[in-house]
């Protein structure tokens, strides 16, 4: 028997065996990406602290003790500062660290929920527009253009004020408003995938359209989806904070970071840390999510970096 090239065809060469698998390449790139690592770590810490809030803090975020109000944080050169309340207390004597931790739950809850709602809407219409093109694409383009021409903050405020604000209303209003980027990105990602050979092959062997969309298109656009999802989650968190700051988001006494800044606004000239602490928390959360998103984009699609 002569060993021919034909016999060897299915067997990987030594070089192929030694080459790292695609997953390993991704992992290696991810572990070298500082932004991704730092963003992911900060976000993980915030999530863990939010989930463990009842364990970390011995206080109730709603418990008002006027006898201990406006204690400054621990780094403050004041005799009142105490390790019992490391971040101090607010104007109603509620422990600020406790409110910050429970506020993280609210921010994350709104960010994730609004992102999921807008993700479902935007991805559906974006993928449909990208896959079918033609008339469908025109209609979707028109819907996206219309949505973009309406000012988000203003419409959100107006609708929330007419319906009446609650956590659920804020989540749905934001979710129904911010799907535009999902639609735009998913549309162009699907357009790129649609013209590949394996789609034509799937069509040729008679796969149904839903099946092609789910098993052929979806796996190839999911990396773009994850990147947009992180950015939109950050967007939703910032919008919620702005709505709550203007008094039309999460209602008192629920601890929300935007609301905490709003409540402390009148005292900020005397006790500026009251707005600094929730502001920095908000900044860190959004920053970490954005860094994670940018990092994921660099790792999964380095060619899109610029």
């Amino acid at each position, binding site marked *: 028997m002569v060993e021919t090239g034909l016999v060897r065809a299915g067997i990987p060469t030594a070089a192929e065996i030694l080459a790292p698998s695609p997953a390993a390449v991704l992992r290696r790139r991810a572990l070298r990406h500082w932004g991704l690592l730092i963003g992911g770590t900060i976000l993980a810490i915030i999530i863990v602290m939010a989930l463990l809030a009842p364990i970390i803090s011995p206080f109730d975020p709603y418990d008002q003790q006027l006898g201990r109000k406006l204690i400054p944080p621990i780094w403050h050169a004041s005799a009142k500062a105490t390790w019992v309340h490391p971040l101090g207390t607010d104007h109603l004597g509620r422990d600020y660290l406790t409110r910050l931790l429970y506020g993280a739950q609210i921010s994350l809850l709104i960010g994730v929920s609004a992102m999921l709602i807008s993700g479902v809407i935007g991805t559906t219409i974006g993928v449909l527009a990208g896959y079918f093109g033609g008339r469908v694409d025109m209609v979707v383009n028109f819907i996206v253009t219309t949505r973009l*021409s*309406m*000012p988000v903050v203003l419409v959100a405020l107006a609708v929330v004020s*007419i319906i009446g604000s609650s956590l659920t209303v804020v989540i749905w209003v934001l979710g129904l408003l911010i799907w535009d980027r999902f639609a735009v990105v998913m549309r162009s990602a699907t357009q790129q995938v649609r013209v590949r050979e394996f789609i034509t092959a799937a069509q040729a062997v008679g796969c149904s359209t839903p099946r092609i969309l789910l098993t052929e298109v979806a796996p190839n656009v999911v990396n773009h989806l994850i990147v947009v999802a992180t950015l939109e989650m950050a967007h939703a968190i910032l919008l919620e*904070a702005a709505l709550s700051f*203007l008094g039309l988001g999460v209602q008192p006494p629920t601890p929300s970071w935007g609301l905490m800044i709003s409540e402390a606004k009148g005292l900020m000239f005397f006790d500026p840390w009251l*707005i600094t602490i929730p502001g920095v928390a*908000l900044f860190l959360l*959004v*920053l970490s999510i954005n860094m994670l998103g940018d990092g994921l984009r660099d790792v999964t699609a380095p060619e899109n970096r610029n």
Partner: protein
Amino acid sequence: MLAFTAKRLGIALLVALTVSLITFSMIYVSGDPAIAIAGEGARAQDIEAIRKFYGFDRPILEQYFSWLGGALQGDFGRSFTLRQPVADVIAARLPVTITLGALAIAFALVLAIPLGVLAAVRPNSIADRFALTVAVVGQAMPTFWFALTLILWLGVYWRLLPITGSDSWLNFIMPAIALGYYVTPAIMRLTRAGVLEVLSSDYIRTARAKGLRPMTVLFKHALRNAIIPVVSLAAVQFGFMLGGSIVIETIFQINGLGYLAWESIQRKDLPTMQAIVLSLSVIYVLLTLVADLLNAFLDPRLRVT
């Protein structure tokens, strides 16, 4: 160009109409606007009186067309609370917001374009990293918190600028910075990407090969082409900022359209709310239309109909 213009105009008109329909339906999201205005615990006859007074008892389509017909003639009805025509109130407040928006976009461009160019000329240099930091921080900082921090430092600690009001031009500096910083990242990233792309093109190599000075190549040849998309992005961002100025105007108590919007939302002044949403949307539609036409005029490749 003519066919493109006609098509683009048609789309803009359709978008404006759809927006007007959505804006009109907005007051019906809660079901009954009369109950929303009367507030909780209002008596049935009060709600009925409100319904009659504002014409909510008429067929919905009739209400929409009479509202739209009025709007087309510049009549948005009377404000519920200010006791004067909504159009007059908006006409008085719009220039303030446009001034603020223009100052903010000017601030953003002055900060973003040099940073973007610098970052593109020397990729991965210290300048590039600095520009990236400015962008990343700008995207993550809550506008309202940034505004409060500016007030605290520039207004209270250093006493450089007045804190609230809209009487002198000094009042506009902090709001313009707060509002402009928010749109800086997008403009900077686009400038950087545009300049990077243009610098690697053939005609730039030719320009360099024939011995032009690097500065001439950069400013006379590269920047001119790279700046075209930035101009249209700036127009679009200007539209976004008019809508986003509600937060900033409320904080600095600037008597513009954003503050008016906030006041009318607080008082459930539906005609004013609708009129503001509609006019800001129409301004945005017009801005994108102008930007698109300008781009198509400058770059014939975009005139695909």
